[in-house]
């Protein structure tokens, strides 16, 4: 085990993958000799050569188009989009191509080896265009998997699983935690199974559900609740599509209460889908309305970020409201 921050953990997963399979390629804007603007691909070009780790021209639709072609060909492309805010020019390649490649061809062709890595989320004074959490645009698209890690250990294990998985995956990296989150991470390669939520803390009064950087905030709110004698069960969804309904439903059946928190705006965010599904499955067990603590329905602001975000105080208030309903 070694102490790694989240960036190192990702770099280590990429390094192992490239080491183990020469068909693995890493590319995107500035990912080559510079190692990416966040340095996630640092050292990979030096080690594996320019053919396998390289800069692309500045064109996200091209990066994903190129990646789709490589994946169809049998290579294992790991494409980086510099910020999740800039994934939209590639939206057609992802939603109409990546997600439908296998289905439309009757499995004659597939792009199952593709992984898209991209930093998402706020908390870095990035304003409208360096803070977005666009996961719900993809969780509503059959044919792609969506994965979000919450810490270095999870990041390495989940990213490795994404690379080895036979479906295309978008891997959202919580950039606020890139350097801030540090933890024990095995030096060797390992996988954390996709499609499984993790019960991070057991509790009895209310279930708190989230993913990525929001888990830290949820844990803080849980601490606040604990001081008031409220026992929270915390679940990290980890794989958002397809998601682990059973683990969540089981927990809510037990606690009778659910609060979901994510960074993206509330309306149309993935919490709505979860709420709808769990309301349906746990209808007779719910003791209070499912709470959603999310961003406001505005673009992501700069100066008023603190007021805008789903912070621990807001989650704590939602916990109290749920328990006192």
């Amino acid at each position, binding site marked *: 085990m070694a102490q790694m921050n989240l960036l190192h953990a990702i770099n280590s997963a990429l390094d192992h993958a490239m080491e183990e399979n020469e068909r693995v390629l890493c590319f995107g804007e500035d990912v080559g000799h510079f190692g990416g603007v966040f340095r996630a691909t640092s050292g990979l070009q030096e080690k594996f050569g320019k053919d396998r780790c390289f800069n692309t021209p500045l064109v996200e639709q*091209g990066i994903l188009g190129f990646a789709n072609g490589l994946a169809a060909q049998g290579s294992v492309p790991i494409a980086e989009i510099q910020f999740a805010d800039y994934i939209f020019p590639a939206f057609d390649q992802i939603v109409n191509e990546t997600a439908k490649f*296998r289905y439309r061809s009757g499995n004659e062709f*597939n792009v199952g080896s593709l992984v898209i890595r991209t930093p998402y989320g706020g908390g870095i004074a990035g304003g409208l265009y360096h803070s977005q959490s666009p996961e719900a645009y993809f969780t509503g698209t059959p044919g792609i998997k969506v994965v979000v890690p919450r810490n270095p250990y999870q990041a390495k294990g989940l990213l490795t699983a994404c690379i080895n998985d036979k479906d295309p995956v978008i891997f959202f990296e919580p950039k606020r935690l890139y350097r801030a989150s540090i933890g024990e991470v095995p030096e060797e390669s390992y996988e954390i199974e996709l499609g499984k939520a993790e019960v991070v803390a057991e509790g009895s009064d209310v279930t708190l559900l989230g993913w990525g950087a929001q888990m830290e905030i949820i844990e803080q709110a849980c601490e606040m609740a604990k001081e008031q004698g409220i026992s929270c069960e915390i679940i990290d969804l980890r794989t958002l599509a397809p998601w682990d309904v059973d683990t969540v439903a089981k927990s809510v059946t037990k606690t009778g209460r659910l609060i979901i928190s994510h960074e993206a705006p509330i309306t149309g965010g993935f919490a709505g889908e979860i709420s709808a599904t769990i309301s349906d499955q746990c209808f007779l067990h719910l003791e209070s309305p499912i709470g959603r603590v999310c961003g406001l329905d505005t673009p992501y602001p700069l100066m008023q970020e603190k007021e805008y975000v789903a912070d621990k105080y807001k989650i704590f208030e939602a916990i109290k409201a749920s328990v006192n309903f």
Partner: protein
Amino acid sequence: MNRPDSKVVNAIHQASFIKGDALDIPTLKVLDPQGVVIEGAQMPDIDETLALKIYDTLAFIRVFDERMVASQRQGRISFYMTCKGEEAAITGSAAALSDDDMIMAQYREQAALRFRGFSTPNFMNQLFSNAKDLGKGRQMPIHYGSNELNYMTISSPLATQIPQAAGYAYGQKLQGNDALTICYFGEGAASEGDFHAGLNMAAVLRAPTIFFCRNNGYAISTGTDEQYAGDGIAPRGVGYGIETIRVDGNDLLAVLLATQTAREYALKHNKPVLIEAMSYRLGAHSTSDDPSGYRSKEEEDLWAQIDGVLRFKTWMMSQGWWDEDKDAALFDKYRAEVLSELKVSEKIGAPALDELVTDVYNDVPKHLQQQLSDLKTHIAKYPDAYPSAKGESH
């Protein structure tokens, strides 16, 4: 990079523009409009066997296109698109390739697929979306694909295959398997952002790709004067630093020559090449379209006169490789074959209901298994409402 004061820079001191038409791009021609080899013209690498295979493809596709449009009118299939007028450009280019080369087409390139060996039932089963369709009946007619034949399944969103072709070719290069990717697209699709992305990336990343633009004058109703203001698509190649050639798309030998030359160059240098084949969409855009609303019969006739199939046939006859009797027999054979295969394919049932949820992912995930089983329960309650329960083919 060049410092602007460096000696190598070509400097001017008066403000004058490079004109929009600064490149005068010539057109490669081997056959004249009558199908006679132009004096002094370079010949492609072609022998009788190849010529016969090419002509066989041309003949099949002419018959097939005609017959399937008729079937659509009869309501037997829902939709069709012909490649009429462009058979020479498509078959001539496909004939320059190795079977290992990947073909990524737009949708009007059935001749290339036929040249690769896609059988008449293969075509028919796709058009009827039946249980034997390689695509499992999921896409509209003409969205063919075959892994075995290295022909990527067609997808309707235009131009998406262009950067994909660059990526595919890059992968081929890294594997060192002496194969490349050809990417077909229309002059309309060349307006999409994906065109720009694909050509630039192939050039910068040195992907052995042949970008083959079928400039057929129209994108549905939109003529080229509303599609671009420059001299077609070819000059864009120069913008990307890509070797480029324009060719008479109705001159099969010229297309074959250009594509053979391009293939050799691309593989030798690991670089892309852009070919622009000037031709004409002789038919409607699709069976949903009626071109009389936007172009004249005279224009169509003008192009019909320099039809590439006829010119190639004339040339073959001048070689002593073909005659009218053989021609009539070949067309008769294909007419009969298409008719009888049509009758077979239209009777084949629909894909199994279970295929509704396969191939979304590699394995069918739990929620889709659940949706399928709920659906089956539901269908059981209303057997008359669902073709799958009634065992209908359509």
